[in-house]
């Protein structure tokens, strides 16, 4: 085999092997995070808990199964949703600086949640009204974006980005108005919601989130190849046989569903949607059949680790996880950028 083929095969296998490594690392990170927390659970305790033995006290069981595990799982799902949506949006807009927030869904979800706090409805429907209003807010924002753009097709991607910026500005001012007019109680709840937290995790929430992640992942995975082709520009992608309008619509819908659901349950958590796909590309190359699953895994692991920090660093108190996503993601990202690698987008 000639040297060029050898080199290429090597690189291709390296990408696949790294993805496999990420997939194997994922359960390790999950288990580690599940075994750590404010309440000390030693290896013996974990064994008793997982095997259903009677030595596990009622308190231990409550902490592990009702409080800690749903929280770790929620963090993984939220991280996966945000990162996957980020990968889709970055591929679609051909911009590694794109963030799912560009399509307005995060700001819309924030407005929905803040409105709920403002009206004092946060406890209604067994606490489900809050995430519901956040989710609806996120989707409405995306619909408004579509209206601005007279159906996503017209005007192309550049116009879409600008419309997103305008929408975010408008929603920001609506948000500001609510914050200004809120009672002190509501204001504090609003502020802490917007900083993001996985603390109120419940198992039913994780089930809902799995459904949305599955829908979004399916929509995006179908267009992995199209996302690759789009890197040549929308015109050339169309010549290659990509239905650009359909791809754009479905990726935005998929991203909106995932970010809307994730934000509904965990508040606005920034940075992940931007950084995780980038990390995936640095490690795995530019092909979306590697980048999409890679971003999903990296996003999930990052948020699980950030949440671990949020609940242990100042225990028994809690930190807002949004502060930590930047603290965990930032330096790691910088380190990745410094590595010499011809996979990097230069």
């Amino acid at each position: 085999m000639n040297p060029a083929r050898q080199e290429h095969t090597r690189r291709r296998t390296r990408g696949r092997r790294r993805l496999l490594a990420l997939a194997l690392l994922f359960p390790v990170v999950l288990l580690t995070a599940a075994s750590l927390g404010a309440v000390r659970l030693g290896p013996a305790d974990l064994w008793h808990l997982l095997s259903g033995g009677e030595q596990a006290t009622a308190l231990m069981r409550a902490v592990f199964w009702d409080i800690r595990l749903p929280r770790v799982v929620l963090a993984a799902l939220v991280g996966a949703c945000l990162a996957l949506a980020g990968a889709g949006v970055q591929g679609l807009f051909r911009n590694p600086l794109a963030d799912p927030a560009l399509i307005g869904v995060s700001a819309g979800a924030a407005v929905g949640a803040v409105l709920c706090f403002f009206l004092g409805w946060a406890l209604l429907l067994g606490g489900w009204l809050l995430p519901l209003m956040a989710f609806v807010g996120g989707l409405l924002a995306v619909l408004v974006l579509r209206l601005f753009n007279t159906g996503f097709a017209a005007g192309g991607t550049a116009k879409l980005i600008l419309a997103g910026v305008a929408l975010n500005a408008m929603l920001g001012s609506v948000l500001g108005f609510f914050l200004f007019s809120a009672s002190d109680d509501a204001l504090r709840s609003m502020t802490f919601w917007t900083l993001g937290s996985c603390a109120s995790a419940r198992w039913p929430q994780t089930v809902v989130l799995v459904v949305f992640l599955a829908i979004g992942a399916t929509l995006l995975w179908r267009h992995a190849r199209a996302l690759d082709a789009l890197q040549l520009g929308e015109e050339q992608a169309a010549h290659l046989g990509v239905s650009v309008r359909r791809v754009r619509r479905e990726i935005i819908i998929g991203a909106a569903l995932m970010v809307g659901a994730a934000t509904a349950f965990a508040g606005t958590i920034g940075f992940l949607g931007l950084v995780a796909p980038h990390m995936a590309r640095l490690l795995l190359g530019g092909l979306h059949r590697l980048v999409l699953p890679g971003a999903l895994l990296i996003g999930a692991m990052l948020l699980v680790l950030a949440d671990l920090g949020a609940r242990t660093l100042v225990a028994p108190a809690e930190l807002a996880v949004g502060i930590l996503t930047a603290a965990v993601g930032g330096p790691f990202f910088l380190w990745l950028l410094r590595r010499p690698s011809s996979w990097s987008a230069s």
Partner: protein
Amino acid sequence: MRLVPIFLALVLPALTGQAEPQRIVTAGAAVTEIACALGLGPRLVAVDTSSRHLEETRDKPDIGYVRTLGAEGILSQEPDLILISSEAGPPGVLEQLARSGVTMITVANGHELENIDDKIRIIAEATGRTSEAEAVIARVTEDIAALRQLVAAGDERPRVVFLLARHGGSLMAAGTETAAHAMIEAVGGVNAAGSFAGFRPLTPEFFATQPPDFVLVSESVGENDAGLLEGLPGLGAGSAGQGPQIIRVDDAAFLGFGPRTPSAAAAVATALRRP
């Protein structure tokens, strides 16, 4: 001779069929203050951030801000009783705590001086301190009576505004539906900022057209912010009786609706009546 109380402490709970909680976690300044007033200070294993201003609670582990608690953090303190104020949150965490099996009592945080009794009684019952509670309630009732007398004695109601500092260095005035508003009324004043609900930033016109007689300043307005006060037209340093008089208050005592509130209110009511 110490054996008798020890014996009683060990046996009594068995006799009454209910063990007194030994490890208590509190969230909410009023709740914590009441617990301390009932002599439960040593049994508090952790408190929230707003409760750590008391001498007894200064060094206790901090479970965080009352509205953003963490279930596991609280449970890691191995409490046998959790006392929380009604503003505690988030709701999801309270649910998790409820399911954990640890006794949790919620104390409603109203803006009525008369409700302080009820808060004391609820906490006393949950902790088996009903006898100590009577003394505390008696004191509180006395203080409320004294306050009411002071207020009734005055003929006109002074115009008062309550200011606190928000992040970013702006001054906010308390409108209706705030604890400050309730207290202004309780000390016999009229809330000059009563035209809106919640907190709003001040506008200079406010002080120019209808200056208040008194300005109650939260301790959150620090030394550096004093400049903010002076900068407002109509608000002077109060020299030679010109402009409103500035009175500093201890938030936790004055606005907490805990056992110290009636006496703190009486102090303010007195200041309001000084010529």
